[in-house]
């Protein structure tokens, strides 16, 4: 057999969780068995984004993607594909392939067709722990170009021209931030990568670092050169052990190759990066809070100005950008700001990464050009809603964002359109919600989170979120009063205007946006004591229908003895005794118990 095969096993966290690690040894075993060990090599890669189909194995050449691979499938893959040259159709995910500068090898045109992978260009392609892999795909070429061909001012100008805006969520023009930091006379200056990804349900930054850590390192080094900083810090969540391990190794390898440290690539630019761990505080995503955390204190924000670019870490000028923002930099320098400007919309250039999850067929990590509509993301990339359920809303921006109903599905994704629609871009969490979720309950879920994460420094956020949560809780418990909606609106408006930092200013968004778009649901809860999604336990009653065969399973699990009935005869629930725990509903095998 003449062909040499490359086998890629996705080693991102979602795939590891679904069992990818056991596959590597099984593959090696089978290769040895067929005497193929010098004809095929196994590589590990970062996240390909098809997280719901994990574990993923890719066989090259040809880029055949196998999904849901188990150990038992390995002998067939090796025997059929590698020995006989016949890809295993049973396991392969689609076969249409796309090829362009940022899509060399991806398969599955439906999932990848609307995507454009700029920051994730190497994720799922290279071995993230191998610097040579990165170097072979033009890695560190942008840094070399910057330090040899461009002046710091030219680099700043390039970033400014590109129109890149902060990917952490607020969308501040990145070039402007760089310009402010570069203009400062005080030294030393610092560069920080904000990898304290805290939105519940978001994992973009983790996947980016796990899949391609060198891009972030390279971006930071370019940033250091542009603003005249000699030290960089990656502030990363302690909850991300694999990402920490990979970025630590990337920094070490870059140092060994002369790409970090003194006199980078023979120039007079010296720059090094260290890692600092976060400790689980959502508010530390706010830049002044993050700086306090790096300084070893409680992560509480302070009023701005002075902005960190003037007075930041240890009182020195500091440039802070988010992981995804940094990952854009090498591409902008290499392909040019003018090329970058061709992607996206008038006010938002480039692409955006989203962690697509919730009630959608394809959950995973996606990257789409700005201007793609929500409908394209939910129905084309995401494959629509599973189980024939009806779409209800899409939530963007996590606890700082809002819920958009069907009439906003044709909204193009960019900072300004989403803001006009009443949500925000946010850092990239995108949750699809179907008819089974109650919007009041969703608003309560997010407010519970922000209330818990409020650092307590300013009164509007500390007290206001607590009061809003109390009102929401009583509404979902069926104790809502007339005037509650207006009270929520008034409180929300005050918190928005009077809070110190972004956490508080955006905390009411999930509530205000659901009131705006789903006001009827709030009114039903308050006036009719009814939850149309049947999600609010107190507003639901369980009933046994004529489908009941009298098996008695529900009677046995009921913790309060509320269910009675003779064997093989339909049972009944005593509504006065019922505590609405739902055990009977979950136990019934005949769908004879309904929520009303």
């Amino acid at each position, binding site marked *: 057999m003449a062909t040499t095969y490359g086998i890629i096993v996705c080693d991102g*966290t*979602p795939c590891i*969780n*679904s069992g990818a690690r056991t596959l590597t040894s099984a593959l090696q075993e089978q290769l040895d068995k067929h005497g193929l060990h010098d004809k095929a090599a196994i590589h590990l890669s970062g996240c390909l984004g098809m*997280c*719901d*189909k*994990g574990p993923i194995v890719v066989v090259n050449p040809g880029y055949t993607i196998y999904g849901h691979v188990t150990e038992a499938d390995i002998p067939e893959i090796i025997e059929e594909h590698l020995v006989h040259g016949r890809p295993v159709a049973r396991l392969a995910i689609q076969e249409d392939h796309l090829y362009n500068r940022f899509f060399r090898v991806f398969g599955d045109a439906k999932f990848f067709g609307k995507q454009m992978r700029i920051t994730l260009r190497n994720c799922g392609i290279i071995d993230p722990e191998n610097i040579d892999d990165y170097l072979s795909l033009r890695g560190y070429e942008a840094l070399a170009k910057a330090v040899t061909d461009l002046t710091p001012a030219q680099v700043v100008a390039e970033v400014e021209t590109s129109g890149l805006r902060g990917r952490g969520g607020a969308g501040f023009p990145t070039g402007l931030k760089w310009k402010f930091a570069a203009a400062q006379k005080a030294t030393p200056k610092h560069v920080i990568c904000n990898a304290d990804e*805290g*939105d*519940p*349900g*978001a*994992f973009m930054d*983790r*996947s980016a670092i796990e899949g391609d850590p060198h891009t972030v390192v390279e971006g930071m080094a370019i940033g250091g050169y542009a603003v005249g900083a000699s030290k960089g810090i990656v502030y990363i969540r*302690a*909850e991300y052990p694999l990402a920490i391990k990979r970025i630590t190794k990337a920094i070490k390898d870059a140092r060994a190759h002369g790409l970090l440290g003194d006199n980078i690539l023979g120039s007079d630019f010296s720059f090094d990066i260290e890692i*600092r*761990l*976060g*400790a*689980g*505080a*959502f508010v530390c995503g706010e830049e002044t809070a993050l700086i306090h*955390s*790096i*300084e*070893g*204190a*409680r*992560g509480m924000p302070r009023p701005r100005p002075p902005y960190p670019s003037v007075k930041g870490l*240890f009182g020195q000028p500091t440039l802070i950008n988010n992981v995804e923002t940094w990952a854009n930099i090498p591409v902008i320098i290499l392909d040019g700001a003018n090329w970058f400007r061709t992607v996206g919309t008038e006010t938002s250039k480039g692409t955006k990464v989203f*962690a697509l*999850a*919730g*009630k959608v067929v394809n*959950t*995973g990590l996606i990257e789409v050009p700005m201007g793609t509509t929500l409908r394209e993301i939910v129905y084309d990339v995401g494959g629509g809603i599973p189980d024939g359920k009806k779409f209800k809303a899409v*939530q963007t921006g*996590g606890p700082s964002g809002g819920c958009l109903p069907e009439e906003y599905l044709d909204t193009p994704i960019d900072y300004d359109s989403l803001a006009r629609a009443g949500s925000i871009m946010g850092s990239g*969490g995108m*949750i699809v*919600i*179907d008819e*089974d*979720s109650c919007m009041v309950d*969703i608003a309560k*879920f*997010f407010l519970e*989170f922000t209330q818990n994460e409020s*650092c307590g420094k300013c009164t509007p956020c500390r007290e206001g979120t607590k009061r809003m949560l109390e009102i929401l809780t009583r509404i979902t418990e069926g104790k809502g009063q007339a005037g509650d909606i207006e009270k929520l609106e008034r409180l929300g408006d005050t918190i928005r205007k009077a809070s110190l930092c972004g956490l508080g200013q955006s905390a009411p968004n999930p509530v205000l946006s659901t009131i705006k778009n789903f006001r009827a649901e709030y009114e039903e809860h308050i006036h009719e004591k009814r939850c149309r999604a049947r999600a609010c336990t107190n507003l639901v009653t369980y009933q046994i229908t004529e489908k009941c065969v009298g098996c008695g399973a529900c009677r046995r699990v009921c913790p309060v003895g509320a269910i009675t009935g003779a064997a093989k005869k339909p049972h009944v629930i005593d509504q006065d005794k019922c505590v609405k*725990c*739902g*055990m009977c509903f*979950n*136990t019934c095998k005949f769908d004879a118990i309904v929520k009303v």
Partner: protein
Amino acid sequence: MATTQANDAVAPDEQKLAQLKEFIAQTRQDEHPDSFLIAVLHRAQELYGYLPVPVMDEVAEAMGIPTAHIWGVATFYHYFNLTPPGQHVISICLGTACYVRGAGQILQTLKDELKIDVGQVTEDGLFSLQPARCLGACGLAPVVMIDDKIHGDLTPKKMVQILNQYRKQAKK
């Protein structure tokens, strides 16, 4: 709470303490040594599994930072435990994707079964329960992580079965 007493009563293990102090000594070389407080607390939790009071006193001494300040930091961040964890740590994912797929019910099942609230340890010390914000297994939602193992596509019934497996193992 009884667990707070347990915290105070523990005398710091000498060998672990030496390791911690060595780590602190390294950080003292830096230009901004106090900025390593969170890193030091991470190291302490790695060594002890949580942050015992006497250890924090030692850290205060070695770093020249008031214990009150250290407490302030340790209580601010969710990652730091001030009480010893259970034999098995259950992290329930309360990320949005899990929530819309029924994590609330799973949490209720855990609370009922274990008779503890989030952040507590069961009476037999077998389990402790903590919330997590997205474990990155959204495709398997709702999920629970017990120690390092992910359990996905959960229903209340499946959750109870899993707990029972751990209980059975512990009895052996």
